[in-house]
């Protein structure tokens, strides 16, 4: 097990920079997820840690040692690839044996290691099969077994679940979480799927265009997004945004738009100046139907109702502004109805419209 730290790490292909000075500290045993849309530099960052890409600038340390110029094999890492990267002509056992070959262990040691990992991952019955004879989920488990059998200090996962169907993804995701708990090895995991990130990570690193947008626990990035990108990227359905202007009200500043006016969150009122353009963010789950006569309710027209069983997603419209409310299915209105909704005060997020940064 080992800590990993990236200091001002840069990757450039010629003059084209794809990773711009990434700083990241990963403590021993931590499960860190690099999350972002495709092209954000997360896989490139992971490949630099793995040694599959040269580092153009900055330093990468594993267990306190700078490993920029070390070949991948001397970095005490193991990697699980998106396409499994199994050797197609070798059996499951041979795949694992080949990964162990450089360690020059005795036959008994190799057998013991393979037996241990195969038992842990439920691969005992599949050891003599070739990858072509396995299902996607089984192949993914073999890929993990091949990485685990080497007992590395850091596991690198590159979108390991994206080739699996939805049901298997949930299942393998849980297995990964369980394995991490059991082994306690440091993990760096790349994905574009926020559900994977939220469920697996101790710490999420949200990246965009080669920059880190926010680092934090799943709760932090969900409850306190640092900017508009993180706010809309995390959470499904994504956060509703309203362009508002700060105005002076009777009891402190209010936020107003052509459609409606609401009181500004009390804790933010100190940071607001009249005339300032702000973006109000509210998660669909923080929008609810108003009780009769509840003050501050906003009248909205129901456009579409999506029934999801336990909950319903209601597409609402106020003037030209559309937004979504996530409410208990039993309370759902009918399309074309007019309803009154209120925003949960604790769920209001304010961002500076110009910089996109949270206020």
């Amino acid at each position, binding site marked *: 097990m080992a800590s990993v730290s990236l200091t001002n790490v840069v990757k450039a292909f010629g003059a084209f920079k794809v990773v711009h000075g990434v700083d990241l500290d990963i403590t021993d045993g931590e499960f860190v997820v690099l999350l972002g849309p495709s092209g954000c530099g997360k896989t490139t960052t992971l490949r630099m840690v793995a040694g599959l890409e040269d580092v153009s600038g900055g330093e990468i340390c594993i267990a306190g040692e700078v490993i920029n110029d070390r070949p991948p094999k001397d*970095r005490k890492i193991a990697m699980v690839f998106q396409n499994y990267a199994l050797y197609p002509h*070798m059996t499951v056992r041979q795949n694992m044996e080949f990964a162990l070959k450089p360690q020059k262990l005795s036959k008994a040691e190799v057998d013991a290691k393979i037996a241990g990992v195969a038992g842990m991952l439920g691969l005992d019955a599949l050891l003599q099969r070739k990858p072509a004879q396995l299902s996607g989920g089984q192949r993914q488990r073999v890929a993990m077994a091949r990485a685990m059998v080497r007992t590395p200090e850091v596991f690198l996962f590159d979108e390991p679940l994206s080739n699996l169907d939805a049901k298997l993804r949930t299942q393998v995701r849980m297995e990964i979480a369980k394995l991490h708990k059991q082994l306690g090895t440091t993990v760096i995991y790349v994905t574009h799927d926020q559900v994977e990130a939220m469920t697996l990570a101790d710490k999420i690193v949200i990246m965009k265009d080669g920059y880190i947008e926010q680092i934090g626990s799943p709760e932090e990035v969900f409850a306190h997004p640092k900017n508009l990108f993180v706010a809309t990227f995390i959470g499904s359905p994504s956060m509703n945004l309203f362009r508002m202007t700060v105005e002076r009200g009777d009891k402190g500043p209010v936020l107003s738009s052509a459609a409606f006016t609401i009181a500004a969150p009390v804790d933010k009122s100190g940071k607001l100046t009249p005339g300032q353009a702000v973006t109000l963010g509210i998660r669909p789950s923080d929008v609810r139907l108003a009780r009769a006569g509840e003050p501050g309710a906003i009248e909205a027209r129901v456009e579409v109702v999506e029934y999801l069983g336990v909950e319903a997603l209601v597409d609402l419209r106020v003037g030209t502004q559309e937004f979504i409310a996530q409410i208990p299915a039993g309370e759902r209105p009918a399309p074309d109805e007019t309803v009154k909704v209120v925003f949960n005060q604790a769920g209001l997020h304010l961002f500076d419209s110009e910089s996109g940064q949270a206020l």
Partner: protein
Amino acid sequence: MGYVNRRNRTIAGVFLLPTVAVLFLTTIYPMLYALYLSFRNYDLAKPFIPRIFVGLANFQEVLTSGPFMHSMWITFKLMAVTLTFQFVIGVGLALLVTQRLPGMAAIRTLLLIPMMISPVIVGLVWLFIYFPELGYLNYFIGLIGINPIPWITSTQWALTAIAIADIWQWTPFVMMGTAAALQSLSPEPYEAALIDGNSRIDVFLYVTLPQLKPVLISLLFLRAIDAFKIYDIIFVLTKGGPGDATETIALYIYRQSFTFWRMGVGAAASFVSLIIISVLITLFFKSMQKSAVAR
């Protein structure tokens, strides 16, 4: 059979007719005629003598004759040597030209040139190179103090000389096929091996080579069949000589038929070699099926 089906068949037949006619005239008829000749005593030098039916006498002569067995030995010896070098060098070159290095595309194209030259021209080019007194090769080895070698005029060197020319011409074929296969291999297992720390030799032996196996087997049989009927280069360089030092099966057949005018014996030898090639091809497809099942 319905009307549409019948009409389709008629149309198909009309379109096939020219091909069938050409095939019949150039392949099937000569083959049948050769089969007929192989059972006859037919001396082209005395065409007026009746072609008597001799049963299996021609086949018996071919299979018990020293010169035929000798030509068989020469053919397989040449095949073994040329294929070994073509595959070792060809696979090596393929590994080289698939590296992402500047200028590799140009080098790859240049390396393919020998394969595109007609074998007769290759023979003539190497004739200039090997020419005993005025040849380039002897000139250049003379510069480093080696005495001239009678490349194509001594029984000791002639087969080697032919092997070198054949290797030069056909190594690019192996290289091209192998390079194409190499480029179709997925890069991720190689990255996995890089991270696991497997040595380059292990990666080649245990990852690359097994994945290339089906392609290498195909290339091997294509080359083997071609090598079995090698003719042009030898005809230009040595005509099977000196003596019978480079007389392969094809040259033996040629010599029987068109030097000694013994058409019956030549035809019988042709059929014997056809059977050998057929066995080779059958073995090839059997092994292909086996490796397809194994995967």
